[in-house]
């Protein structure tokens, strides 16, 4: 039987506010356990939540960016369950009236086609703390630094049909929230976490199959692996006559193993009800308009601008506009060097390769946009050849300074001086009489190929610094008029 996969996502996006959703505690990642937890975060008796205005602005920005309805009246509710990293015994979240209503995200797929993924809604909520089960000798440690950090949970419709679409959507969302500046996008730190709802059904069937939810995937690769593994598992179960159990699953990206965490029967009755400590959040048109005015340029607009104004290909424009930090780096390089196309080539080529190799992000690149622009300028004005440029690039990456000082100190400047070049050409002709004779007796068609030998000799003699174009011209002249 042919099976169709149906995927819906729930994405927790940690908002990059300075303080928590309902307290003034800092949200900085990586602090000593429980140093960023106030009496409110610890749910001490008598404490009350004070909402953080910035979180509402960020949620509104997100809603506007996906062309969603912004709900002018939204309500916080309590989701009740007991867990040690949930100090109040309930999570303050939104259910019936979320701040962001339905929207659409258009995703670019490989091969040039696009896919519309409908967003069901996005709501504001607080994150829980962390339970640490190692190093406590059979007990558990609780770190409440993260407790109360603002999140938006984005819920999609089950619109994706394979892992590629799901991952493309996830990347698009990552690009969107980082471009908006509402999330730092650091997936390894849990700034974006994906829950994937997966079901399969026979092709042509309208009704959805029973789904499972794989929780807390924090890399695109793990997400892809988890989806493929789960789809395969479900098809195997169904084809061997079994049925899918509605359950929550976990995927371990390191061991490449998935397991069931709990079934639907074991799931909690969360007893949601409106939080009586918080009034409904009321936004007016003027507020929403103000946030709209202040929206930064979105990736889609950026991409169009790169194509139309900077002359990039759609492919290049898509990649460079996709990530806020990359876009910023590219624009700075292009502006300073005045060579958008060259800047794009270098960033997508050598820079990307080295970043990848060293597993660092572009903001950590040892070559700044200014430095890269300096290198491009020297290629552009003929000071160095593209070949020498690679050598200068490596030195720059190693922290040896900017392009000009490296070219200077290593004497890499291209030789374009006609007198010097003519002398080199004369020497090569004089020392290789046999090849010269061969060349001269060969017919026109074979000659260009044979020219390479002489160019090679001259480049060797100049240690690569001879301007190849000038060398070509002089050689042709000298070989052809005898």
């Amino acid at each position, binding site marked *: 039987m042919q099976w169709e996969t149906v995927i819906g996502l729930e994405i927790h996006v940690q908002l990059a506010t300075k303080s928590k959703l309902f307290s003034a505690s800092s949200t900085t990642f990586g602090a000593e356990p429980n140093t960023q937890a106030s009496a409110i975060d610890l749910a001490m*008796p008598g404490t009350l939540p004070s909402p953080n205005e910035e979180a509402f602005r960020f949620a509104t920005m997100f809603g506007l960016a996906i062309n969603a309805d912004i709900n002018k009246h939204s309500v916080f509710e309590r989701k009740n369950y007991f867990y040690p990293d949930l100090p109040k015994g309930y999570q303050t979240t939104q259910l019936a009236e979320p701040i962001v209503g339905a929207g659409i995200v258009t995703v670019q797929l490989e091969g040039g086609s696009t896919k519309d993924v409908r967003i069901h809604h996005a709501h504001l909520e607080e994150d829980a703390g962390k339970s640490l089960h190692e190093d406590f000798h059979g007990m558990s440690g609780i770190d409440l630094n993260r407790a109360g950090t603002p999140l938006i949970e984005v819920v999609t419709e089950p619109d994706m049909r394979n892992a590629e679409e799901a991952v493309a959507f996830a990347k698009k969302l990552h690009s969107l929230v980082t471009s908006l500046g509402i999330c730092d996008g650091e997936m390894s730190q849990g700034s974006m976490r994906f829950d994937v709802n997966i079901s399969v059904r026979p092709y042509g069937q309208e009704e959805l199959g029973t789904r499972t939810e794989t929780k807390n995937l924090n890399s695109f690769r793990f997400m892809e692996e988890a989806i493929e593994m789960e789809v395969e598992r479900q098809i195997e179960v169904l084809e061997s006559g079994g049925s899918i159990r509605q359950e929550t699953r976990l995927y371990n990206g390191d061991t490449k193993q998935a397991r069931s965490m709990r079934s639907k029967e074991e799931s909690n009755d969360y*007893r949601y009800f409106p939080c009586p400590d918080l009034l409904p959040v009321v936004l007016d048109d003027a507020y929403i308009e103000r946030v709209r005015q202040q929206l930064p340029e979105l990736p889609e607009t950026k991409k169009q601008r790169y194509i139309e104004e900077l002359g990039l290909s759609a492919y290049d424009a898509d990649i460079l506009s996709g990530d806020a930090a990359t876009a910023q780096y590219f624009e700075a390089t292009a502006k300073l060097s005045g060579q958008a196309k060259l800047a794009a080539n270098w960033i997508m080529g050598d820079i990307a390769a080295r970043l990848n190799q060293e597993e660092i992000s572009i903001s950590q690149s040892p070559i700044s946009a200014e430095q890269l622009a300096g290198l491009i300028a020297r290629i552009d004005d003929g000071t160095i050849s593209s070949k020498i440029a690679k050598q200068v690039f490596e030195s720059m990456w190693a922290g040896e300074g900017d392009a000009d000082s490296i070219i200077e100190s290593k004497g890499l400047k291209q030789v374009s001086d006609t007198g010097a070049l003519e002398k080199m050409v004369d020497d090569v002709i004089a020392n290789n009489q046999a090849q010269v004779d061969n060349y001269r007796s060969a017919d026109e068609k074979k000659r260009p190929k044979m020219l390479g030998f002489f160019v090679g000799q001259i480049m060797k003699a100049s240690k690569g610094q001879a301007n190849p174009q000038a060398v070509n011209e002089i050689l042709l002249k000298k070989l052809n008029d005898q």
Partner: protein
Amino acid sequence: MHNLTIAELAKGLRDKSFSSVELAQHFLGRIQRLDKTYNSYITITEDTALAQAKAADERLANNDDSPLCGIPIAHKDIFCTTGIRTSCGSKMLDNFLAPYDATVVENLATTGAVMLGKTNMDEFAMGSSNETSYYGPVKNPWSTDCVPGGSSGGSAAAVAARIAPGATATDTGGSIRQPASLCGLTGLKPTYGRVSRWGMIAFASSLDQAGTLTRTAEDSAIMLQAMASFDNKDSTCIDHAIPDYCASLNNDISGLKIGVPKEYFGEGLNPGTEQAVRAALEELEKLGASIKEVSLPHSHLAVPTYYVIAPAECSANLSRFDGARYGYRCESPKDLEDMYKRSRGEGFGDEVIRRILVGTYALSAGYYDAYYRKAQQTRRLIKQDFMDAFKEVDVIVGPTATSTAFGFGAKKDPVAMYMEDIYTIATNLAGLPGMSIPCGLVDQKPVGLQIIGQDWDEARMLNIAHQFQRATDFHQLAPQGIE
């Protein structure tokens, strides 16, 4: 000294009849001698009191004009106090020290008030007799065989026994007004949002409101003036202008339109209580008010509505007491679930557990619509009753409680106890301010007259109460045997 009101004590301090330190010592001495009988305090804060009194004396020497400067008061043990145990009347918090002050505590301290101690209360403010306290029942100074009412029974008994000139209290369904009625005091529950709830341990967040227990309306005005503030630490606190509550106390009340709800005089009202209340209404008429019967047709829904909403909210509010971070934790838990079950099972008393269970049930899948949602709808109807009545009258007046103080163990059936608040609960559901003032004695036990005002109308209610107290002396009666 202890027979003087707060207003009189403030004058005495300025006349140098006594110092704040002498005043504090006098009350601390009375607490030592008398409170073994009443059990109105859970914690006595002698050191704090003397230090604050000393500081107040210095302020007074510099002509400080705050009427509460140097005046001893007691705080209901529901208000958090930095470094001083805040138990909420529960074993769960017997060891709890808050690292912060409630806004109410802070506001009163700022004006120079002196904290004598923390008063007894029903556990987590759940009760109408003070019998649910982990620290034992409080005795009514008017009759030590009887309860003082609840949940603010400790604050009420302390003021009635003249071992505190005034006390803070909280009212979720009548917890200030009913004890005021049973102990012959003036009790004021302000409009919801008037006084910050920060640092006040939550029972039912949408109903809880802090207020005062004093002997006179004038003292209530003085205390409310200090307690009321806009506080951005409490999102439900409302930034509404705070009038000068004392300035209007002496206004003439002739022309006042008083509504008397017929539903508050039905079956269950003790005849003696009714007689005292009717006599008080006549007194108000003599002062120039007109009396008109009004109807609050959904009154019968108030108790059932309350006993869905309050337990629902408390079931979530009390989830934080899990033995993990502070408060009671059971001995040697064998795993997480065992820690939760035993810490909560052992740390909470029966009434608290009953309400958590009721609330959990009311919010459960499949029951939410029938209980919680329905209760929210009836809550709106109850509020609408008041809005309709206030189109015709300025204030609503009736009995506070069905009868005078009852004996210990007299209301073992929880529902019988819940009916104690039948006349006060609707006010909380509607968010309106309510007051109880003494209006007579039946069998030597006090009767309370309830005044219900419109939103933010505390000044007018205090004015009415003050005028009534100028014309009568019920508020001056003192229980026997308090020295």
